[in-house]
């Protein structure tokens, strides 16, 4: 072995010293890296011919940047803080920076290893050497995804020969739903019409978590499953479930729905929930995300004593698009009697009418509808209040400071629950009745579905903007947003917790997600985001593996297996179900082994 030695350049990192030496000595980067003895090879440090990606520390940032002069077209400088800037510069510019007395440090940006395996190891899909611990891969099982759309140009939707693993796609966004066969999808994505295109990026990410083909170091949970995809309008989701199960025919199929709402009784009695119960069965499973509303202040609930009165204040948030709206439903048992008043920001009281009546009110800026009825499916009393603003930008004085007074006149049970229809449709201010429990969304409250909560599996990731770290979360702990159970009727939901923060998976090209620099890793077509949306497809993939092993598993059997094999730890605490983690953290190896 020939030994080569050189001095590390003052103020430069060893990697940068090596790269600069490469320039002067014309050494290949591998040799330059090896020559230092302990710097691992970082091929992306030198981006092109002589470009290097660096972080520069200086106490006179503005002056240093100003003195850099004209940069070449491919050079970029991005200030990060008062004393730090990121730069993609030529080696000569890097040398110039090192000679600048006002610069304290110049170091190359290191390639961080993608922590994609964090999820896979968390659920015991792979061991420390990334070897799969289960034989099942989802072969001969369908995974149905109901979501925002799908970038079918992404390699994670294609097999090793480049052919689509998608057997069919339904687009619900036109005047009428349009169905595409695999052949039509291949043609459409070859000629640029791109059926089912994902403008948001959510659906592509979710799909690849459940069943993506191995790509850039990441592999979905069930990479040999076949996809049935629905680009939904987010309203006809019941139709989507029916379409997928019909297409799957006699083959086993698991459907993922990483979406939800709160307009209902949260007791499994809504039409869509009852339909899910009916369509689910042997080899037909539905997995639904619990929701991200734990900290959204959209639910209040509690037991009232006779003659007890409570008052809460709520605000109506502006919306990114469209006029502000607030929809609130309240639910109580028919053996109890309540009286309510909505109090406008100007102090006017609008009483909630008796059962079977609806009152409407209008002003120049908004319409109000208040009604009360018997909700037959649950035999509950439902109170509904809707505020619909006419102006796109109403004054804060009519958006904020709404009051709601609740008086329990007689109580046998005395339980009252209220939900705003979803995030962005009203928010309670802090009050003893405003609780994170029972924030699990619908249709995750359906009896037959597997409802999934989220916990943290990693806090660091790589993006176009460099290394990212979320200091607000602790690996292993529940995600702070993850909605809690139980259902209003006291059933144990969510069923299980899975990694949902932060998950790296497929990035849809040209999507909204691709524009978020701290999330997208464009060159590798990957995206790191969080939500119970990301936790649900982990479980969906696991259920696909379970169905490969036993095609006729029923929803109750799947739930029992997941619950019995779930991991518990110091974060979860007591053994058994709890409203945050369900029965615990999902464990693939144990779940498969127990079938």
């Amino acid at each position, binding site marked *: 072995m020939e030994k080569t030695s050189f001095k590390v350049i003052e103020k430069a990192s060893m990697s940068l010293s090596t790269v600069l030496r490469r320039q002067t000595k014309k050494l290949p980067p591998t040799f330059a890296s090896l020559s230092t003895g302990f710097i691992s090879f970082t091929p992306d440090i030198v981006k092109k011919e002589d470009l290097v990606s660096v972080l520069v520390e200086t106490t006179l940032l503005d002056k240093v940047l100003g003195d850099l002069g004209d940069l070449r077209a491919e050079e970029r400088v991005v200030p990060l803080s008062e004393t730090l800037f990121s730069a993609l510069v030529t080696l000569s510019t890097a040398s110039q920076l090192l000679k600048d007395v006002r610069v304290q440090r110049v170091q190359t940006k290191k390639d961080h290893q993608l922590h994609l395996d964090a999820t896979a190891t968390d659920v015991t899909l792979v061991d420390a050497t990334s070897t799969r611990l289960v034989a099942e891969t989802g072969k001969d099982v369908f995974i149905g995804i109901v979501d925002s759309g799908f970038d079918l140009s992404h390699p994670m939707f294609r097999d090793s020969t480049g052919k689509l693993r998608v057997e069919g796609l339904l687009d619900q966004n036109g005047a009428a739903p349009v169905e595409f066969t695999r052949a039509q999808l291949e043609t459409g994505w070859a000629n640029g019409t791109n059926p089912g295109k994902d403008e948001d990026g959510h659906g592509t990410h979710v799909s690849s978590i459940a069943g993506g083909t191995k790509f850039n170091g990441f592999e979905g949970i069930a990479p040999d499953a076949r996809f049935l995809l629905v680009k939904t*309008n987010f309203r*006809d989701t019941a139709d989507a479930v029916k379409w997928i199960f019909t297409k799957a025919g006699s083959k086993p199929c698991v459907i993922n729905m*990483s979406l939800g*709402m709160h307009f209902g009784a949260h007791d499994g009695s809504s*039409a*869509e929930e009852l339909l899910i119960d*009916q369509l689910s069965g042997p080899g037909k499973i539905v997995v639904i995300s619990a929701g991200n509303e734990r900290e959204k202040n959209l639910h209040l609930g509690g037991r009232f004593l006779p003659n007890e009165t409570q008052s809460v204040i709520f605000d109506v948030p502006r919306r990114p698009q469209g006029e502000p709206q607030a929809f609130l439903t309240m639910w109580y048992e028919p053996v109890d009697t309540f009286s309510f008043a909505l109090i*406008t920001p100007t102090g006017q009281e609008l009483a909630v009418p008796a059962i079977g009546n609806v009152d409407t009110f209008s002003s120049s800026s908004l319409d109000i509808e208040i009604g009360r009825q018997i909700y037959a499916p649950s035999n509950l009393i439902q109170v509904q209040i809707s505020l619909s603003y006419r102006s796109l930008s109403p004054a804060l004085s009519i958006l904020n400071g709404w009051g709601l007074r609740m008086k329990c006149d007689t109580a046998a049970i005395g339980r009252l629950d209220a939900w705003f229809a979803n*995030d962005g449709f009203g928010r309670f201010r802090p009050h003893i009745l405003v609780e994170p429990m029972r924030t699990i969304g619908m249709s995750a409250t359906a009896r037959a579905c597997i409802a999934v909560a989220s916990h943290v599996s990693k806090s660091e990731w790589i993006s176009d903007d460099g290394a990212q770290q979320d200091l607000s979360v602790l690996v292993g702990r529940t995600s702070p947003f993850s909605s809690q159970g139980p259902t209003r009727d006291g059933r144990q939901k969510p069923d299980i917790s899975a990694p949902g923060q932060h998950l790296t998976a497929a990035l849809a090209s040209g999507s909204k997600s691709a524009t978020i620099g701290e999330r997208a890793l464009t060159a590798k077509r990957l995206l790191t985001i969080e939500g*119970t949306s990301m936790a649900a497809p982990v479980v969906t993939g696991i259920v696909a593996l379970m169905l490969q092993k036993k095609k006729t598993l029923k929803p109750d059997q799947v739930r029992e297996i997941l619950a019995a094999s779930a991991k518990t730890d110091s974060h979860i605490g007591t053994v058994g179900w709890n409203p945050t983690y369900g029965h615990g953290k999902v464990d693939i190896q144990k779940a498969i082994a127990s079938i």
Partner: protein
Amino acid sequence: MWMKKTEPAATTRDDLVAAIVMPLMGHTDEQVIEFLSDQNAEVDRLSQGFLSVKATRQTLKNVEAIARVELKIAKQMH
């Protein structure tokens, strides 16, 4: 000042509304489908006892005599 109305606001929009319609006890899917089809509603049978319907608000109000009507509510991504 708020103007109180004693009756629900009249529906002036003639847009089609999406709903799931479930026949009440004593009524069959076929009866409800026929009723809705006669009023030019779009009907798709999702499963026994569950119909996906697009119809005017008035049609949905009319069918409530023989079926439970639940409007489809838009969901959000999680």
